[in-house]
């Protein structure tokens, strides 16, 4: 585990122009050499058995440590490799895809996982299988490349180029030394044309040269060697919802590589140019993801004008090169819509603009459109025909003039555009024009017209129809997308609202699984690690009947460990029924969400899985924030309670035992030898007992108050109180302590009744009076001043004495805190903290005021309400 965290395995790619150049052989040779140097090497996967390899296969063990000549027996079992943990593993053909049933759909993902475990990997690759070179290679060879490897793997790999000449390759082909891949249904002769092979060779050579150059640069940079660095180029790729954008992205990546530049992919959404439908959004999403996987920074903007936004971001990011696709539509449409490319070129002062020509876009797009129009069905067309016929009949029976007749024909066009889209609206307009022409425009019953200006009318009529149709189409698509987005947002919002009210993790989880189960019409469960780190199901949706074996432990663990989605339709374990989504936050993965649709063999739609991912993220965030706050509270509590315990023992034991000692001393003297004492002595002893009990009673009272405050049991019994009355009672109860102490009162005349707990406020004043008494010379005066300040009642209790140091003014309200200046006077440090607790529970504040030679404690109580009027005065007062 630690290894996996600290060290990534080293990847070595044996790169060739095509198959047949001897990559696998060279790789095995290198592996064997490593083995003979004492390195622990094993063969993870060889796709093809050839007599040439026999020697190595016999000498290098497979993952199960057996030496086998049957190369194909060595199955690619990733877990076995990880468990075996060799120093170096040989895995042929990095780009190939795994058979169904494997964990990952692509082999390079296996390799990535193995590398993460700190195991070195030797592998082979053909140049045309590099993601960023894919379309160039397709252009050169004219063949489709199915499996590719992302550039990020090549970036971390050491590349060894295996290069042989064209002649040599053909010779090898003739002598049967070339193994054709299983999927190579192409004619080898055609593939191995001189042009093809040379072009691929050049590609491979150039790619490797570039890498070497880069390494040299890196070396110079890391060793701070000054040299002619290329100016800091920054490249911007313009991305849209078209499949063609992928081409732009790959080109940008190659440019970025060549310039060693940073690059970003920008998508600008405007009202006119939104992806329109779900498919468009999906394409856009996959384009942006491609860009991200190729190392681009992704920027999405919204604005009025694409070109302006692009130029603005280019300026902000100091872009030096813009890559943009050339539009495929005709000049006329461009005139109508305005050309982004032209505007970008016009506005690009000092920025190079690369305009890329598209390839396969038109095909896909038209197919997509056809597909959509198919969906409309025949019924709307029929209705359109009926509508036009009806209008014609109406026009025939009611003799309108030509202008009105023409206008009436616009009705079916508008309606069919609004309800069924472009196709029916065009049909309506064509039919309308024809009927108008044939039945009403002279000469009637003939297509020909006398007056040529009707041709212009027809043209305008058609134009109106096409335009309304197109606009209505787009509007409908946008409305549909907006509706879906809104539904998603609403679902998320609903979930977050439900989660917010939950106060514990179990509550959140059960809410989430039930909401999800409802949303996808299926079942859901959430697994979180328990205290010993083993994943276990914490929450099931109520729909699950059989809870055992519901999830695949292996997949859950994998998802949890890697933080990647797996199962149902994803890249990993794609054929499973369940979809496994990690609950992850930025720092760590906290669990796994498993969902399963009720419909068998049903793959979740992109929209659904996106929604589920959003749900998972939201859940993860809520759970983690709850966990964090709980942990923080726990920690705070521990620190506090630890400190408290110490303080409690020190302070309480002293404070309780002192009066007890005096009581016990006095009482035992009286009991044992009472007759020894005269009356005055006995009285003195009894007074000691009395004082001791009073002091203990006070302490016990304070401790109880504190306990009630701490445990939250102190409930305010709010009633209408007269502050003068409270002060009066407090003074009366403080009498035993204050003795003959002079206390002056100043209570503002018209202070209204306040809403407070009489007994508690009384306690506050008693505590403050006691404090004042304790910390001032006994011949000085204590004063109590009550005033009304705005909407607050302020009560000040003032005694003469050393002012409390600035640094202590806050702290003296802490439990058990005693100011250094007061160490000589006994006390527990409880009284003031009780005051603070009580006053704050009333929504007020307590503080120490700064004054010369005096100690001023002040507390405030809010005066929010006025007492209700007294209705039943018998006196008419």
């Amino acid at each position, binding site marked *: 585990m630690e290894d996996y965290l600290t060290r990534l395995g080293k990847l070595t790619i044996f790169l060739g122009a095509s198959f047949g150049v001897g990559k696998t052989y060279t790789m095995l040779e290198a592996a064997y050499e490593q083995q003979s140097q004492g390195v622990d090497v094993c063969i993870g996967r060889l796709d093809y058995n050839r007599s040439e390899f026999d020697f190595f296969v016999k000498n290098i063990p497979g993952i199960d440590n057996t030496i086998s000549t049957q190369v194909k027996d060595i199955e690619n079992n990733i877990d076995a490799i990880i468990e075996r943990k060799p120093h170096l593993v040989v895995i042929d053909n990095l780009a190939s895809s795994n058979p169904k049933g494997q964990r990952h759909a692509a082999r390079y993902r296996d390799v990535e996982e193995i590398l993460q475990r700190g195991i070195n990997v030797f592998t082979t690759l053909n140049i045309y299988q590099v993601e960023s070179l894919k379309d160039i290679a397709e252009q050169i060879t004219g063949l489709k490349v199915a499996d590719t490897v992302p550039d990020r793997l090549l970036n971390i790999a050491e590349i060894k180029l295996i290069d042989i000449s064209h002649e040599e390759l053909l010779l090898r082909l003739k002598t049967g030394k070339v193994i054709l891949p299983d999927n190579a249904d192409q004619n080898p002769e055609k593939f191995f044309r001189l042009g093809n092979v040379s072009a691929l060779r050049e590609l491979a050579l150039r790619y490797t040269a570039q890498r070497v150059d880069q390494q040299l640069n890196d070396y110079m940079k890391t060793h701070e060697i000054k040299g002619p660095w290329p100016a800091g180029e920054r490249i911007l790729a313009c991305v849209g919802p078209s499949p063609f954008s992928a081409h732009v992205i790959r080109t940008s990546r190659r440019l970025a590589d060549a310039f060693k530049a940073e690059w970003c992919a920008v998508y600008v959404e405007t009202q006119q140019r939104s992806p329109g439908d779900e498919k468009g959004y999906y394409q856009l999403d996959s384009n942006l993801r491609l860009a991200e996987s190729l190392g681009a920074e992704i920027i999405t903007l919204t604005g009025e004008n694409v070109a302006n936004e692009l130029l603005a971001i280019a300026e902000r990011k100091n872009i030096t090169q813009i890559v943009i696709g050339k539009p495929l539509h005709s000049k006329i449409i461009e005139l109508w819509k305005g050309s982004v490319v032209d505007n970008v070129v016009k506005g690009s002062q000092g920025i190079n603009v690369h305009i890329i020509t598209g390839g396969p876009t038109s095909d896909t797009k038209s197919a997509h459109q056809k597909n959509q129009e198919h969906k409309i069905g025949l019924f709307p067309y029929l209705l359109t025909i009926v509508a036009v016929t009806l209008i014609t009949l109406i026009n025939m029976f009611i003799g309108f003039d030509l202008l009105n007749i023409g206008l009436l024909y616009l009705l079916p066009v508008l309606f069919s555009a609004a309800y069924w889209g472009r196709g029916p609206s065009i049909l309506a307009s064509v039919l309308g024009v024809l009927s108008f022409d044939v039945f009403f425009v002279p000469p009637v019953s003939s297509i020909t017209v006398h007056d040529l200006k009707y041709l212009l009318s027809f043209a305008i009529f058609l134009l109106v129809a096409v335009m309304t149709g197109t606009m209505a189409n787009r509007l409908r698509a946008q409305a549909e997308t907006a509706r879906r987005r809104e539904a998603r947002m609403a679902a998320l919002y609903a979930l977050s609202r439900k989660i917010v009210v939950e106060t514990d993790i179990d509550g959140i989880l059960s809410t989430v699984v039930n909401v999800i189960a409802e949303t996808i019409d299926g079942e859901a469960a959430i697994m979180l690690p328990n205290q010993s780190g083993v994943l276990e199901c914490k929450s099931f949706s109520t729909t699950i009947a059989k809870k055992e074996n519901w999830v695949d432990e292996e997949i859950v663990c994998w998802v949890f460990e890697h933080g990647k989605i797996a199962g149902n339709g994803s890249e990993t374990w794609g054929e499973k029924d369940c979809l496994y989504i990690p609950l992850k936050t930025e720092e760590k993965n906290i669990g796994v969400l498993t969902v399963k649709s009720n419909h068998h063999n049903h793959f979740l739609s992109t929209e659904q899985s996106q929604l589920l991912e959003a749900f998972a993220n939201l859940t993860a965030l809520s759970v983690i924030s709850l966990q964090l706050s709980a942990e923080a509270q726990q920690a705070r509590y521990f620190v506090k309670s630890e400190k408290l315990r110490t303080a409690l023992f020190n302070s309480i034991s002293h404070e309780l035992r002192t009066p007890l000692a005096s009581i016990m001393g006095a009482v035992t003297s009286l009991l044992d030898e009472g007759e020894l004492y005269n009356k005055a002595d006995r009285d003195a002893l009894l007074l000691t007992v009395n004082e001791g009990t009073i002091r203990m009673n006070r302490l016990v009272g304070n401790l109880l108050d504190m306990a*009630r405050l701490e445990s939250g049991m102190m409930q305010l019994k709010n009633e*209408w109180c007269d502050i003068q009355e409270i002060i009066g009672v407090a003074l009366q109860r403080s009498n035993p302590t204050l003795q003959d102490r002079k206390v002056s009162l100043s209570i503002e005349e018209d202070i209204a*009744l306040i809403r407070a707990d009489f007994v508690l406020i009384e306690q506050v004043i008693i505590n403050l009076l006691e404090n004042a008494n304790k910390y001032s010379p006994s011949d000085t005066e204590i004063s109590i001043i009550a005033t009304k300040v705005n909407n607050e009642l302020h009560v000040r209790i003032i005694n003469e004495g050393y002012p409390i140091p600035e640094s202590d003014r806050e702290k003296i309200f802490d439990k058990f805190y005693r100011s250094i200046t007061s160490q000589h006077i006994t006390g527990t440090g409880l009284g003031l903290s009780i005051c603070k607790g009580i006053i704050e529970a009333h929504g007020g504040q307590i503080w120490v005021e700064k004054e010369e030679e005096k100690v001023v404690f002040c507390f405030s109580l809010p005066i929010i309400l006025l007492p209700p009027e007294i209705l039943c005065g*018998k006196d008419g007062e």
Partner: protein
Amino acid sequence: MERMVSELPDIGARVLIIDDENQIRKMLKVALSAHSYEIEDAATGQEGLNKVALFHPDLIILDMGLPDLDGLTVLKKLREWTRIPIIVLSVREMENDKILALDLGADDYVTKPFSMGELLARMRVALRHATKTEEEPVLSYGGLTVDLAHRQVTVEGNEVKLTPTEYDILKNLVIHAGKVLTHRQLLKMIWGVDYQQEAHYLRVYIGQIRRKIEKDPARPQYIITESGVGYRFIIKD
């Protein structure tokens, strides 16, 4: 010290102590016997109820925290058939129980820990109220005199003008002099059953009365506040 002490016929009165704490019972027995009371004690609520019937006490001291029946239940059962004065022993933190006990018919309360003087004073007041049969027309305590027949109040010989409500409140407090009256009891006496929750009426009127009869309204000599419970007209020289 207590002016009324010698005048009251409480010598030899029979007192039943119901408290589960042996120490308290023992202490009370010694102290009260010394003051010429005849004492009987019970350790549980049930025993207490039985002894009331057998012992025929003149006064009951009832602890609120008993192991079997709680004090309030014992009080309720007693009040079903007897008007013997009852003083409850309670702790400071339980204002609600005190109020409940008083509203259920307890005559007074003493908060633990208490001084013996305090308990004795309460007992005397309770016994006096129980034995008093007819209302005196003029009540006089310290410098304050209330002439019930003429609805006249004088302080140190000077007549004090009170409004009808103020007079009613003062009259009720003085009639029950020495005894605590809960907010609810007072409100009911003055304004009737519908006004038992309007404690702020009392705050306002008591404030007004104090300003008229007390030398220093903040340090009252006649009407004292029993915080959280009610008011008491204090009997003192």
